[in-house]
């Protein structure tokens, strides 16, 4: 590829990159007048864009669109992880799902996840963002540190929390030392405490991520708005209500939806905390854990796993539709 520079123009990028006015180029490069015009931005040969798009399009087809169709197809079969003959079973998988206590339990767990995560992860990160927004000495360090849980693997984080939430671990130890608890709480074995433990882990790991989204939104708040409000005699709290909140409303909505979807997709945290079992009787399983469980081994069932995948897709669609609805209403 000979793409090292502009063929004719010795002054190359400087003219094109920074200067938004094409007229200047004509002045700087008068030799262009002698060149035959090729006509606007569409000098490109027709296949150039498709060539550049080809890899991404192929990936989209092979790893997104085809698997979606294949999931639908497989959900009507009894395909097995270890291969073998595949039979059409009609709606059997879907009917089985309706009567599957584990699926009902997993959906219930998802709802609990959402209900607890939603307020915590839409509100706490906003306050943290307001805290790191001000340019104080060392603020870059704090921002980076607050983001650290986001970059760590869910497996690592879950192992750390498993140790901290152990019967003899840090949390129970501290709580007993401070006299808050008489006996250790079974964070990792009780059916509901497992979910609550996983929620706290997900919240802790998500704070930094949503903080960044708020930080980007706060960057768009005009300083003069704050000043104007202050001059009108608005205190810090009032300024937060009338200036900051309206400015981050869009980000807050986005985050609310992202949190809902993330709650429905939880896997690694619960998997690692329960050693892959989902607690006693698998009652603390999540939807994705069920899908994973049916994807492997002699007892696996890809048809059933596909039907579960479709159910999961429709469940995650709900918060997205709500977002679309709210968005279209606020535009009107």
């Amino acid at each position, binding site marked *: *590829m000979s*793409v090292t520079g*502009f063929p*004719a123009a010795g002054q190359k990028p400087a003219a*094109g990159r920074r200067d938004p006015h*094409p007229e200047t180029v*004509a002045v700087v490069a008068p030799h262009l007048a002698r*060149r035959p015009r*090729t006509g*606007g*931005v569409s000098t490109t040969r027709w296949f*150039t*864009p498709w060539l*550049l*798009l080809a890899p*991404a399009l192929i*990936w*989209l087809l*092979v790893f*997104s669109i085809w*698997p979606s169709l*294949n*999931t639908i197809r497989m959900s009507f079969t009894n395909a097995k992880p270890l291969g073998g003959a595949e039979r059409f079973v009609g709606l059997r998988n879907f009917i089985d799902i309706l009567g599957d206590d584990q699926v009902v339990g997993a959906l219930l767990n998802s709802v609990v996840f959402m209900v607890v995560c939603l307020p915590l992860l839409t509100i706490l990160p906003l306050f943290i963002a307001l*805290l790191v927004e*001000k340019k104080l000495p060392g603020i*870059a360090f*704090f921002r*980076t*540190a*607050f983001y650290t*849980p986001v*970059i760590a*693997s869910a497996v*690592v984080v879950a*192992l*750390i929390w*498993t*140790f*901290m939430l152990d019967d003899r671990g840090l949390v129970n*130890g*501290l709580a*007993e030392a401070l006299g808050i608890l008489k006996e250790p709480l079974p964070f990792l074995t009780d059916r509901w405490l497992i979910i609550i433990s996983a929620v706290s882990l997900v919240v*802790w790991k998500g704070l930094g991520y949503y903080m*960044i989204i708020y930080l980007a939104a706060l960057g768009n708040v005009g300083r003069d708005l*704050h000043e104007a409000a*202050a001059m009108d005699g608005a205190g810090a709290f009032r300024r937060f209500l009338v200036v900051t909140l309206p400015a981050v409303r869009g980000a807050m909505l986005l985050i609310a939806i992202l949190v809902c979807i993330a709650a*429905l997709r939880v*896997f690694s945290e619960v998997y*690692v905390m329960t050693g892959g079992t989902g607690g006693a009787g698998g009652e603390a399983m999540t939807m*994705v854990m069920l*899908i994973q469980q049916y*994807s*492997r081994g002699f007892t696996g069932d*890809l048809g059933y*796993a*596909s039907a579960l*995948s479709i159910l*999961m897709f429709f469940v*995650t669609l709900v918060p*997205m539709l709500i977002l679309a609805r709210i968005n279209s209403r606020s535009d009107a």
Partner: protein
Amino acid sequence: MSIATARRSRAFGRMGPGERISRYALLILVLLVSIGPFLWQLSTSLKSTDEDIYTKIPQFWPSHPTLDNYARVMDAIPVWQFIGNSLFVAAFAVGGNVIFSTLAGFALSRLRFRGRRIVIGLFLATLILPGEATIIANYVTVRSVGLADTLLGVALPGMIATLNVLLMYNAFRGLPDAIDEAAVIDGANALQRFWNVSLPSVGGTVAVIAIFSFIGAWDDFLWPLIVLTSPDQFTLTIGLQYLSGTFSSDQRLIAAGSMIAFIPIAIVFAVLQRFFFKGVEEGGVKG
């Protein structure tokens, strides 16, 4: 007038010492919550087997710091091989996403051609698919081409993420049209415009994509868990889960193992965080 100015300077000039102190106090509190657990794990990984790690009053400082647990992890599982496997997968993810989503994003935003809107719509539409919903079918695809239980099978699907294509599309779209027109008048073809004119202006977003592709591949758990069965193919996260399943009674060992997985990624991020936050300002996160 002077009252207004005074109030203004109180609110927006230097913050008072009271506010400064309370801000730092809160910052330190959040700091303890966010990195405390990592430090606790680090401390545990450095405690010798003679030391009780379940003391009633937590001991944050190891009484006899030792790297012994790290050596034991390396005896228990082939850590270097797992790291190599994870790096192999991450290299595909970073290379594929940086190169191909940049090319595709450029074509979608800076070139005019028939069908462009349809392609953009197609990319947008697949965004609503949660990856977990197609993971079974993706496994079937990978298995059908003989890549089940291989690292290539783990690496391949993540090489070009739709979201990254759209992030690049967004970044390129933010550049003024005039820079293209100027380059066209200069006689630059599409590739030259891509390389010399557009690409240098979206470095922040490229950096965000590179960082996140690496982190995503290094941290991924579910997909390699589904694809891989042989221990010699395990990535580090799978190896870690295997370690904790086998040595669940020895928290020092697990602590050391999790630090081995965490420290490299922490270093990568600490070194590159400048680019990351710059990319965020460029709009690389909001998508």
